[in-house]
């Protein structure tokens, strides 16, 4: 049963999700029980994603700064608008 209103994006398959919200924070790991001198900054991200049925899930993950700055992420995404 197809909906009569056009969805903004035809989801190709059930596994593709839409991003509903993107929250981030910059943290600093200082010390831990296994390593007294951690001292590394990291980016923590919380994504809210909706699947094809509209169910919203939360996904959290972290990246180190070098990972965040990796060309793949920024270059890849900045390339996309050029295609529109």
């Amino acid at each position, binding site marked *: 049963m197809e909906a009569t209103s056009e969805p903004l994006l035809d989801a190709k398959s059930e596994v593709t999700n839409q991003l509903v919200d993107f929250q981030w924070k910059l943290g600093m790991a200082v010390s831990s029980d296994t390593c007294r001198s951690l001292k590394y900054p990291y980016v923590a991200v919380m994504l809210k994603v909706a699947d094809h049925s509209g169910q919203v899930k939360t996904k959290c993950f972290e990246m180190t700064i070098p990972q965040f*700055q990796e060309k793949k992420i920024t270059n890849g*995404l900045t390339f996309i608008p050029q295609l529109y």
Partner: protein
Amino acid sequence: MDFAEQSCKLPTLTSEEALPPRSPWCFCTGYLGTSRPPWRGKAQLLWGAGPSQSMAAGEFEGGKPLNGLLNALAQETFHGHPGITEELLRSQLYPEVLPEEFRPFLAKMRGILKSIASADMDFNQLEAYLTAQTKKQGGITSDQAAVISKFWKSHKTKIRESLMNQSRWNSGLRGLSWRVDGKSQSRHSAQIHMPVAIIELELGKYGQESEFLCLEFDEVKVNQILKTLSEVEESITTLISQPN
């Protein structure tokens, strides 16, 4: 039996660390059983010759066996690959050493490696720390210190990375792939050339299988994300430029 008793009355070990966990007898009986002299330094100590040097320091070689030992310890302690038993290490790297003597030695090396990694020592701190270890009772030889120093210098980055991974209890971003599809037509509309960005994130917790998250973005969303990413970038720049 008399001979055994007599041997054990010779110059004794000065450090508690060097003593095997069980009675001093096993030290003598093990030694007496061999037909050839055991490791360097021990013969001198038993027969009363030579300076009184800490047993643990004198009896274990540095060089390749120690390097192998440190590698095994790093695998187990930092990189999450346990399963290398004490007995396997001993028989492969120090076959002439008794298990009772090997155990405290292994514990000492493990302790030293953990201390160095925990403090994330730079090279100055490392030299100072290892020098102190060579000077103390039941410490290490300068040969062993040199091997440990070389090991830390070449493995520091990897060990640190493992420690960082272990301390991250959220999922980490293991990989990111993206693709842009050009939708030409669909059943509902005759739209031509509506690009859709598809990004696949590979996420995973330490020691667990990866989870894949696939997201679709239109042009508006992509620009929003890019704006957010530049805000994060700005924040990072501010943080890094601040003095500690």
